[in-house]
């Protein structure tokens, strides 16, 4: 067979064998080579199974670590508020200790301690190699003992009991009290003699006390508003003096008005104070006689002549060993409610974390609102408009490196640039009457959010760039072919299509930002913020105010408080809350993204 090979061109034609035109695969050769080796199996390495195992175990280890951490936080966080039973330990020397057993551990007994023990226990401990067990007991009554906890050594214990009339009392101040409730009195007259009725009577009396506490809180809010108005009128005077001079008629008019206002406000203030005082004195009639394990009366306050504690001092009290399961659950839930909805007490180790939740939430929100547009705009220019070259590569590398800068450095920058430079200027321009007290010229939620936005902007830029690059070229070309300009193509086609990817970046940035603490310590987070950044006074959002943050709260309670052991359960609970908050923010964002993805899902191809 001969084929014309020069068919492409009209030049001279050359005869060629067919195989040179179309290489024919010689199937028989392949078959023969297989046959020669006979039956065999694929090598293990070629099948790739060891790599699968390797990858699988890597994933397993990572998952285990994450789950372990989550379990630790979850277990400790969940169990913190459960009302435990109160154990009464009777020691060999006759002393009695009342308290919740927090944990137990084995420990190596020191020789001097061993020498002081009875012969019997010395022999037992020596036999077990010098090891013994001890229990950490939360005794409460900080005002009496100077500590909330006591270690009880096993060998010292003579007996254990669950006494019935033991109450655990959470107080407004001085932490928990643990002791026997002997009587409840009104004006020194006992309300009940029968201890079975204590719970019912106490609930009644305490309910009244809580109502009056709410009344006081409402009155104090009013006083706060008065103070606010007073402050405003003083600022108006100062403003007038700055603007017109001290001797001017305007200043005098404003000052007179302010004086009138002040006298009126002072009258209101006194009236409110009197009201509060009357409520307090009414509260003072109800007292609870509680005695600790040794039989000492737990006083109203340590320095006072021994007066029994006020019922209005009590946040929550329950007979720990006679509580039914239902009541126990009630106590547990009420503690959660308190934790989530009230302000902290007792150097943050008691009470709630509402301001911290609010601060974290608001800061993350402001940060996202700032970081999203900035990151997207920067990424758009980098990817769509900038001529790809050395300069753009350098910028890209710089952006990526920014993510590796220690976060505290961002904090320093935020403090120096946002708070002092920008905030200082703003104060001089808009709030001269308040100087030298700074308004924006100090740490605040706005500056903290901006600092975190700066910290997380690389994440958004990188994710957005990836998302933009992943928009199919065919879509852009389709848009251009319809006569769209570059901007119209970006705005109508590229950005919507890239939104899920951009959302991923924002989610990552939010998670990073919500968990960051170090830069916040310099730019506006405080241990205890008296005012939320949001209230009923115009303009409602006070972005200059300092705020509380769950991450910082964890650090503060766990490591900075006078009694970190007492705060430890709170650390876990706060951690759980922070994780839950970040998870919540993420879930919202992820759901938003999946809805977008559904919109862009390609049904075919």
């Amino acid at each position: 067979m001969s084929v014309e090979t020069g068919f492409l061109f009209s030049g001279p034609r050359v005869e060629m064998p067919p195989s040179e035109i179309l290489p024919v695969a010689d199937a028989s050769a392949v078959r023969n080579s297989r046959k020669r080796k006979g039956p065999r199996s694929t090598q293990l390495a070629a099948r790739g199974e060891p790599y699968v195992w390797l990858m699988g175990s890597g994933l397993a280890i990572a998952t285990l670590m994450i789950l372990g951490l989550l379990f630790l936080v979850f277990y400790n966080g969940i169990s913190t508020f459960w009302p435990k039973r109160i154990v009464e330990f009777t020691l060999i020397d006759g002393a009695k200790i009342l308290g919740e057993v927090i944990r137990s551990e084995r420990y190596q007994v020191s020789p001097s301690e061993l020498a002081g023990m009875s012969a019997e226990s010395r022999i037992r401990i020596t036999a077990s190699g010098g090891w013994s067990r001890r229990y950490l007991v939360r005794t409460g009554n900080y005002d009496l003992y100077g500590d909330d906890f006591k270690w009880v050594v096993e060998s010292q214990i003579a007996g254990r009991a669950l006494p019935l009339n033991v109450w655990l009392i959470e107080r407004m101040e001085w932490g928990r009290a643990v002791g026997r409730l002997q009587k409840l009195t009104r004006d020194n007259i006992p309300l009940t003699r029968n201890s079975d009725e204590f719970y019912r009577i106490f609930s009644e009396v305490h309910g009244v006390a809580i109502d009056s506490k709410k009344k006081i809180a409402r009155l104090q809010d009013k006083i706060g508003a008065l103070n606010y108005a007073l402050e405003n009128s003083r600022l108006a005077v100062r403003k007038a003096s700055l603007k017109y001079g001290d001797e001017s008629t305007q200043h005098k008019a404003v000052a007179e008005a302010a004086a009138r206002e002040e006298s009126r406000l002072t009258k209101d203030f006194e009236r409110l104070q009197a009201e509060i005082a009357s409520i307090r004195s009414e509260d003072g009639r109800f007292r609870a006689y509680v005695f600790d394990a040794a039989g000492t009366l737990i006083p109203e306050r340590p320095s006072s002549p021994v007066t029994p504690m006020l019922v209005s001092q009590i946040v929550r009290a329950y007979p720990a060993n006679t509580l039914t399961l239902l009541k126990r659950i009630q106590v547990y839930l009420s503690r959660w409610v308190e934790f989530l909805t009230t302000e902290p007490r007792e150097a943050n180790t008691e009470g709630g974390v509402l301001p911290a939740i609010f601060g974290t939430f608001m800061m993350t929100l402001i940060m996202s609102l700032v970081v999203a547009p900035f990151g997207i705009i920067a990424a758009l220019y980098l990817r769509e408009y900038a001529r790809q070259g050395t300069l753009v590569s350098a910028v890209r590398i710089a952006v990526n490196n920014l993510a590796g800068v220690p976060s505290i450095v961002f904090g320093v920058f935020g403090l120096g640039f946002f708070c002092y430079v920008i905030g200082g200027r703003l104060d001089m321009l808009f709030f001269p009457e308040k100087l030298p007290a700074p308004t924006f010229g100090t740490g605040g939620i706005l500056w903290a959010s901006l600092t975190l936005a700066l910290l997380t902007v690389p994440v958004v830029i990188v994710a957005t760039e990836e998302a933009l690059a992943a928009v199919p070229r065919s879509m852009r070309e389709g848009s251009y072919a319809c006569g769209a300009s570059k901007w119209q193509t970006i705005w109508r086609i590229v950005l919507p299509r890239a939104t899920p990817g951009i959302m991923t970046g924002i989610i990552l940035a939010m998670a990073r930002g919500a968990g960051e603490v170090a830069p916040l310590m310099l730019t506006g987070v405080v241990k205890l913020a008296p005012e939320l950044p949001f209230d009923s006074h115009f303009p409602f959002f006070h972005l200059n105010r300092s705020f509380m943050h769950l991450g910082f709260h964890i650090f503060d309670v766990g490591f900075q408080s006078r009694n970190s052991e007492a705060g430890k359960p709170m650390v876990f609970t706060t951690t759980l809350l922070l994780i839950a908050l970040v998870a919540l923010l993420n879930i919202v964002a992820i759901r938003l993204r999946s809805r977008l993805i559904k919109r862009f899902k390609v049904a075919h191809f």
Partner: protein
Amino acid sequence: MNNTQIVDESPVTLFGPIAIPGKQEPVSKTAQTCTDPEVLREKPVLEIEHFDLWYGTTQALFDVTMPIPSGKVTALIGPSGCGKSTLIRSVNRLNDLIDGVRYAGDMRLNGDTIYSPRVDVIELRKRMGMVFQKSNPFPMSIYENVIYSLRIDGENRKNVLDETVERCLKSAALWDEAKDRLDESALELSGGQQQRLCIARAIAADPEVLLMDEPCSALDPIATAKVEELIFSLRGEYTVLIVTHNMQQAARVSDFTAFMYLGRLLEYGPTKTLFVNPSLKQTEDYMTGRFG
């Protein structure tokens, strides 16, 4: 025309060099002689004149001269990498988006020059429609897809938009299937429907010429038949320039056919003439499937 160039450089295209059996011979036909006089009798909408194009240093189009007759379907055929797509993308200057593209020569759309620095490319593209190889509906509703070119012109009058959607979807034979789901995402349509939607979108702005770059290559035979029927029905109303790999398709839908090879226009004439009685050996070999 410098014929030695092709001998010096391997015929590299966008898709890499192509292996050609036998030694390359210079092509002696000039652009004028390869065009059938019957084409020249028609009134042209688009005139491509001595058009050369380079990707970097590689020349992809060589001195293409080609009038596109008004109201007819003109098919561009040729082996992979011969420059068909490059040529059709040059018409609406989509190649501008690729870095390092240079060109010489000119094209004219109804007498207006296309390749001049003073031309507003965006306005120019609005006078043409284009359908791509792979359907590329935008990530929005069917309705918004069709009126995309009107939206970007700032057209917001509801009655105008409604009327356009109905007209275009009817022209694109998609109205019956899509009229009840205009607000659904266009991405939920089937492949063939998506491509017809793209055609509807391309004709929404009443283009002077409709460019189709292998519109059926990603479709199954049934969807292909529908799109072909549609192209056939568009003749007279619209001027269509279609690139295709499928010879039968070219034969079925087009009035005129141009055969391109290695960046050159080798033969251009009425489809019937080209298929039944090609004047070049290469054309015949390609048509009969002996290479390509």
